[in-house]
């Protein structure tokens, strides 16, 4: 937990976390670390930064709030983005989102 708390201090500016990245799939264009942040903050983090990748690019959101899974999915539906994959890792969940517009 202390590691997660430490990381969240600069949640938006932290570099991508290698541990959370898929061992198989291609690396996302951007990783947003919202570990330790309560909903709706992870969704706000995602919304703020998705514009940094080109249309068709991917953002990986790391979050451990239990509401993140339903809310990332609902946000993608509302904004027309595509939730490509969801994965569990020890500190939380990773959501891979493709920017579509």
């Amino acid at each position, binding site marked *: 937990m202390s590691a997660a708390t430490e990381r969240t201090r600069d949640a938006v500016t932290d570099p991508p976390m290698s541990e959370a990245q898929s061992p198989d799939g291609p690396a996302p264009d951007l990783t947003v670390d919202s570990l330790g942040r309560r909903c709706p903050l992870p969704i706000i983090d995602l919304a703020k930064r998705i514009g940094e990748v080109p249309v068709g690019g991917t953002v990986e959101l790391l979050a451990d709030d239990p509401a993140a899974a*339903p809310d990332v999915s609902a946000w993608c539906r509302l904004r027309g983005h595509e939730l490509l994959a969801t994965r569990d890792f020890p500190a939380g969940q990773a959501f891979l989102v493709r920017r579509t517009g």
Partner: protein
Amino acid sequence: MVKWRRPGDGERRERARQDWLGALSCGRSVDGVSAYLDHASTTPLHPAAKAALLTALDDGWADPARLYREGRRARMLLDAARETVAGVLGARADEVSFCASGTAAAHLAVLGAAAGRRRAGDLVLVSAVEHSSVLHAADQHERTGGRTRQLPVDGLGRVRLDACVPPPGTALVSVQHANHEVGTVQPVAAVAAAAHAAGVPLHTDAAMTVGRIPVDLGALGADLLTASGHKFGGPAGVGILVVRSGTRWANPMPADERELGRAAGFPNLPAAVATATALHARAAELAAERHRLGALTAELRARLPELVADVEVLGDPDPAGRLPHLVAFSCLYVAGEALLGELDRAGIAVSSGSSCTSDALTPSHVLVAMGALSHGNVRVSFGRDSSPADLADLLDVLPGAVAGIRERAGAVGL
């Protein structure tokens, strides 16, 4: 000099009664609440129920199981209450039992039907959007060796009929009459038909519909129905359990002779009488109230997207498919807890299914099952004393409250 006087018995009882009733009847004027819009959680005591409660406290205090005069009088009151409830719901009096709460009724219905049909099967099917009382009963069934499965719902929160065909070994199907968080009315009659085709009984939790929309057991086709007195203007502490004759049911708890062997212990007779009175009064008001409150919810549903950006109004847009008095919506990028706080400070009482408003910090299972946005969630529910002024208060305050929270969270222009 103040002279203390010990009040007489009658006086003391009257004072306690007044205090108690005063605390119960929380209308617009009490506690500084200018707009109480959480009538789906509980609603003030109906005036007719209040009068009946006072009378029954005097006339129905004795043990209805005893044969002397006072006991017989209590028995008559209880029987009349049972007849009244049965009449409104389209049941027979001996199919109706009063118990401690709507939650206790749901527990008894689910676990009792599962126990009664143990030889037929051990699988209990419940919709994914049931009230926690039904889900907890299903959990208990599982802990004692049974199996449960959840029936999926669509984006409106409506159970998917194609998933409602009970497989062999099913003891019970339980699907609510209407959802408590988003107001979607479930296709209970169709679910009952599917269950009956497989020889399986259906329980419906009608806590949200009894006293709000017409509820007729014959039309619903349900074998077991449960409801809660305080949801429609009765006092708290009364659940209604209906077990249709011919339905296999075995009391999952130690039983006695009370309430036709379905709910043990001395019944809360005055509250049961008041509940029956509230239900009878509500039945007479139903048509007008549905129309009046339906207009308020229709206006709220229409105005929300105009007044608040990025708001998702939940549930069935078709008035025929939803409760007339309830609207739920979710505001993107808004913490439900913060929004409830802002509204509360403005004197507006609503509830929320967002995780930050729950003790467990988990989002509402209803919103998750529907795939709805779970944060920034608000449930507005109107009642008998709601007026267009309450709606106007909400529409005045809500847009600014949402905008302020988004601004403080840096969530503007996203």
